[in-house]
């Protein structure tokens, strides 16, 4: 993406497409249209990532670094890694010499440790001049652990891809056979496999004739083809289980408790291979090497492809997150791929606060140089649009530019944070997330407006956000008397309420776990229903006014797990199971936990939402899709923002101030060769289209016109619209949230053709230019055409025209004095249609 200043200095501007003054209005519009298209095309940001710098680690490492073998069949594979001075790691497992100190206890075969006899010893790893030792303990080396359906057979289905959504994991199965998706219901799978079609799927008399084997190996017709080869580990496991009589597991069978993936971070060079090792820990204290049983996934095939056995091959320069899935766990490892020759070196830049330190730390690793600080006028326009949703007036601009105060930017931020427009911006943002809109069935217009007013009142009084959330979640009473109860009216289904709460306040989409364990996150169905269980006792009845609903909680109501059919007690998502026996209203417990430091996601999520508003991209993006497989681009930064936010007692203003006064926020959009490809590490200012409401307000502001929205006085701003159901062609075209869902994706910031056409030919711009009569009034005030042009530029761009722009405009003005008002109006129109105007840069 070209930076914004660049656009203005680019050849396209020099040829006059930005200000195509020498042409009559119509031609001019066409030219601008083309220019806008050019912008729209270049606005697609390419998603490449700069190379990282290595972290300082020990030169030779082995993963895992403590090994315990617990039965005759237990083995452990190793990965030996060498890290050079640059921090680049190399997988040297095959070159390293791996020996067991006491060879009577264990042996090592191609990087895998196998037990011989009980005892404790060490494994020695030697690579060139480096050596390390790790402890090895062997227990029950002569005892074979009995084969288990859950521990041995179920992982085969995941690993072989049998129970994916496209195959037997589909809700209705595939070709008549169903397995639970990613194995969320092992007991059901056992029945389906062994007894459902009575004698079809397994044959205990002649195990090798079992359909599950002949289908799996593809030796008979199988839509899914060959999933494993005869004699492979997976085949052997299934065979062992069949030979043992296809036993089911006793209730005491160990449960997997966690999954570890090694190494957790690696910086490798393009083309280099690297192995991963995965180990699961069980409730009986044992662990197992599950590298061959995991399902490996990568977030970026181009940079790091991964084989089913956990072998990474570095591709092109970039960042990837390689995940391993086993049982209900998904864990990831960060892989950074850098070209063979990269230059390190980081300029000394000022760090205004902790934000800059943490952003720069990451940039140093990636060897990216941040952009320069943006100019005062650009900063002022950026801050105005972001903080209060307006553009500065000429007077404000001149005062700020004239100020010699070294802390004038900070002071400006303070000033803006105390304006009522700041409150309105955030009321609008939260109204979107809370889906404040009238709704034929459940929320009357009156209730929606009251709900909005309630929110506005809270934010205006700077009520800490945890308090607001607690009020919302534990609200009882009438939707008119206590508008916060509308939270329970915008959606009335228990499950939907739980999902929305998780998405809005924790940034998590747990919907998947309604029907099966989340495939790319840690949430199981038990987590889902445990969370939903907080909302099961919400009751509603009609108020005296038929438009009002009275929301109460308490009494009875449980939710059953769809697999076990048993009620699930309430459990915080990713937290404890609170004691609800004495609680009248479970939601109160939830509210207290949710909006508190006990909930690790709350502050992080809010901080991320705020960050995304000002920087154009969340540290986790999208902001409401927090999951293991979508890790933050800078976790340390996110944690710091969250902890500061918590420390500030959830006071928004202070967090916004931290962000807006950071150097990171004030970076120019002009890039340098190292950061031009960066999109997620905040190395340069991001060019962002102004969101629908703010754009309309800004056009209205600079043209001195007034808009009328339903329920608001003439001249009100679009930002102030209370009811999300209000429609307006301009706002809809520019992607205003309809507030139908809680998804952050509702606000559409992507430019599109109808937006361009609407600005060019639609009623809004043309009408407002003539309606507002700005040009006419200025001319009436006997202002010179040059002064009018200055004024228009200051209004729209917060800057004066450049000399080139003057030169281009001058001949037009001079051509025909009678046409001057018309020409100036056309100039105004052109400015409003320019990229510089509709983008915040």
């Amino acid at each position, binding site marked *: 993406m070209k930076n914004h200043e660049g656009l203005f200095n680019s050849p396209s501007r020099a040829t006059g497409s930005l200000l195509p003054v020498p042409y009559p209005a119509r031609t001019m519009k066409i030219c601008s249209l083309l220019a806008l298209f050019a912008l729209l095309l270049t606005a697609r940001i390419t998603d490449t990532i700069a190379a990282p710098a290595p972290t300082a680690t020990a030169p030779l490492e082995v993963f895992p670094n403590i090994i315990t073998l617990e039965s005759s069949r237990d083995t452990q594979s190793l990965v030996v890694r060498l890290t050079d001075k640059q921090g680049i790691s190399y997988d040297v497992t095959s070159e390293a010499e791996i020996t067991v100190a006491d060879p009577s206890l264990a042996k090592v075969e191609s990087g895998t440790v196998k037990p011989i006899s009980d005892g404790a010893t060490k494994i020695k790893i030697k690579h060139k001049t480096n050596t390390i030792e790790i402890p090895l303990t062997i227990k029950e080396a002569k005892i074979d652990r009995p084969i288990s359906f859950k521990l041995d057979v179920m992982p085969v289905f995941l690993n072989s891809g049998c129970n994916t959504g496209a195959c037997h994991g589909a809700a209705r199965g595939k070709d*008549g056979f169903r397995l639970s998706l990613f194995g969320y219901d092992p007991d059901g799978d056992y029945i389906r496999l*062994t*007894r459902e079609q*009575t*004698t*079809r*799927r397994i*044959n*205990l*008399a*002649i195990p090798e*004739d079992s*359909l599950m084997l*002949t*289908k799996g190996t593809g030796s*008979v*017709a*199988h839509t899914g083809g060959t999933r494993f080869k005869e004699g492979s580990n997976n085949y052997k496991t299934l065979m062992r289980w069949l030979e043992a*009589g296809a036993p089911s597991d006793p209730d005491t069978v160990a449960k997997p408790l966690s999954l570890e993936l090694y190494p957790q971070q690696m910086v490798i060079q393009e083309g280099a291979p690297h192995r991963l090792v995965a180990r699961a820990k069980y409730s009986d204290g044992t662990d197992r090497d599950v590298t061959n049983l995991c399902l490996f996934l990568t977030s970026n095939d181009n940079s790091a492809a991964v084989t089913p056995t956990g072998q990474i091959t570095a591709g092109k320069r970039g960042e990837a997150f390689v995940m391993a899935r086993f049982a209900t766990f998904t864990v990831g490892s960060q892989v950074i791929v850098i070209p063979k020759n990269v230059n390190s070196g980081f300029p000394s830049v000022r760090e205004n606060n902790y934000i800059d330190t943490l952003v720069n730390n990451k940039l140093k690793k990636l060897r990216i140089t941040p952009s320069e600080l943006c100019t005062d006028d650009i900063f002022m326009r950026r801050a105005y649009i972001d903080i209060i949703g307006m553009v500065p007036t000429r007077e404000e601009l001149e005062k700020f530019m004239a100020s010699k105060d070294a802390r004038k930017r900070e002071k400006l931020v303070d000033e803006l944070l105390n304006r009522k427009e700041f409150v309105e911006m955030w009321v609008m943002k939260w109204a979107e997330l809370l889906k404040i809109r009238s709704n034929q069935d459940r929320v009357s217009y009156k209730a929606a407006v009251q709900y909005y007013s309630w929110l506005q009142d809270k934010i205006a009084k700077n009520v800490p956000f945890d308090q607001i959330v607690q009020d919302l979640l534990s609200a009882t009473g009438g939707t008119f008397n206590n508008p916060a109860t509308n939270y329970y009216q915008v959606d009335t289904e228990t499950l939907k309420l739980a999902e929305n709460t998780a998405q809005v306040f924790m940034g998590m989409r747990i919907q998947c776990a309604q029907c099966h364990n989340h495939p790319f996150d840690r949430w199981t169905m038990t987590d889902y229903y445990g969370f939903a269980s907080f909302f099961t006792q919400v009751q509603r009845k009609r108020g005296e006014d038929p438009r009002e609903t009275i929301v109460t909680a308490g009494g009875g109501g449980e939710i059953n797990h769809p697999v076990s059919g048993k009620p699930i007690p309430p459990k915080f998502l990713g937290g404890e199971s609170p004691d609800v026996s004495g609680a009248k209203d479970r939601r109160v417990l939830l509210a207290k936990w949710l909006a508190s430091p006990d909930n690790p996601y709350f502050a992080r999520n809010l901080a991320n939402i705020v960050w995304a508003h000002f920087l154009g991209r969340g540290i986790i993006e999208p902001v409401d899709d927090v999951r293991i497989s979508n890790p933050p681009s800078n976790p340390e930064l996110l944690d710091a923002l969250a902890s500061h936010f918590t420390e500030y007692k959830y006071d928004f203003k202070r967090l916004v101030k931290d962000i807006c006064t950071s150097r990171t926020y004030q970076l120019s959009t002009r890039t340098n060769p190292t950061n031009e490809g960066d999109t997620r590490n905040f190395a340069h200012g991001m060019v962002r289209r102004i969101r629908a409401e703010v754009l309309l307000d800004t056009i209205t502001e600079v043209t001195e016109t007034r808009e009328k929205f339903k329920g608001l006085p003439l001249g009100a701003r679009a930002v102030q619209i209370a009811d999300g159901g209000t429609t307006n062609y301009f706002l809809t075209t520019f992607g205003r949230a309809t507030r139908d869902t809680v998804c952050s994706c509702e606000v559409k910031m992507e430019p599109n053709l109808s937006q361009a056409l609407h600005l060019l030919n639609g009623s809004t711009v043309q009408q407002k230019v003539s309606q507002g009569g700005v040009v006419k009034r200025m001319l009436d005030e006997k202002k010179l055409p040059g002064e009018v042009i200055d004024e228009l530029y200051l209004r729209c761009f917060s800057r004066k025209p450049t000399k080139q722009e003057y030169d281009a405009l001058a001949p037009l003005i001079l051509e025909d004095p009678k046409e001057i008002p018309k020409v100036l109006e056309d100039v105004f129109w052109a400015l409003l249609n320019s990229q510089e105007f509709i983008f915040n840069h």
Partner: protein
Amino acid sequence: MIRLQRIAFAFLICVPAVALAADSPGAAKITYQDQILPLFRNSCLNCHNPDKKKGGLDISSYSAAMAGSDSQKVIIPGDPDGSVLYRLVTHSDEPKMPQKADKLPAKDLDLIKQWIAGGALENSGSKAVIKPKLDLGVATPTIARPAGPPPMPKGLSLEPLVRTKRPGPLNALAASPWAPLAAIGGQKQILLYHTQTLELLGVLPFPEGLPECLTFSRNGQLLLCGGGQGAKLGRVAVWDITTGKRITEVGDEFDVVLAADISPDQKEIALGGPAKMLRVFATTDGEKLHNVKKHTDWITAVAYSPDGKWLATGDRSGGLYVWEGKTVREYYTLSGHKGGITSLAYRDDSKLLASASEDGSIKLWNMDGGTQAKNWNAHSGGVLSVSFTHDGRLTSAGRDKTTKTWKPDGAAEKTFDAFPDIALHTAFNDDGSRVISGDWSGAIRVFNTADGKKLGDLTPNPKPLPPDPSPTATTLKPATQPTTKPIARK
């Protein structure tokens, strides 16, 4: 054939129009106008009125109520249990009515029952007209025993082809209708046992794979086995039970044959399986006579009626159809099962079809009209097998691991000791005095029908014979080449 039909007819018990209690003086008549309409108005007419007509049913007038819904008649005068309306309001069938409301009070249900039982009268002037109801209690066999000694295996090889470490389940089971003989599907072989002495009488090789279904011809002379290898091969083989010769085979399926039957005249073999196609072959030359696409799921049960008039087929989604035996034209759609059909059996008089289903119920269907005659929950978790005696009693096996016997009207008789695993198949011996049943683990037991005692065990995995040095020991090689000898009865 004609002779047979005549005999069958002779045994039909015709029930004349009954003079009902409601008609007798003294008892108050229950009529649609007087008692039932007010009751319907309270609970049913909000949906089942001429405007909404939910499910195509309007019961706001007598004629509309009697006309029934889109798919069927809902009231059968004189037969409350056969009336869909009554079954739904008593919640013995789904969808439960009234929907989203409490069950009707017992006295109202009782009123509806009495009204239907009394002939579903319209008003006090109406006279009950009740169709002769099918009698479930057939007491004597309706098919004559074939003349001559019952066919028994003679001098068949007793050497098992396959001996495995584990027995494997009871894959298939059939008992000869006239001889003390049971056929058991083992691994790539069929074992013939004497049902009185429990001796092994012969081993029939089935190298195609697993026997999935076994059935004797009506005269007990032929044994038919359908089966094969999953996702690879499906075939039906027919043996002469006396000689042990494989006399024909039909079908060339790409997956196992799950169900097959031979027509009583032995001219046709019908089969079905995962291909969802009902195929009928001529036994004479193996020509495919019919290839019917109707079932939407795997065909799991196929049965000809003893008179050859009907062919019933069931599938894994609960689809149950009755076809004309000869033409294989669709005749009845028997809807009611909520789970897959697992087994079908005709009563000897061909008037009644029993269906077993994964929904846990056994249903009896009246072949005169294709209506449900009886329905009861037999095995929780699913019924896997059902079959009749000559005198109309039933035996069933299911996922509750038990085998049960039932009186001809469906009343429970005996529940035998549970198996270690799900009970897969069950059958009566020729005279109905014994029940042979087996489970998933391979346990096969013979019970005494009268007192429920276990009489002995059979195995699907017999031991190899001790080596016999005598050169006269006869072994019968598996018939690899099918013969084309016509086996149709003259």
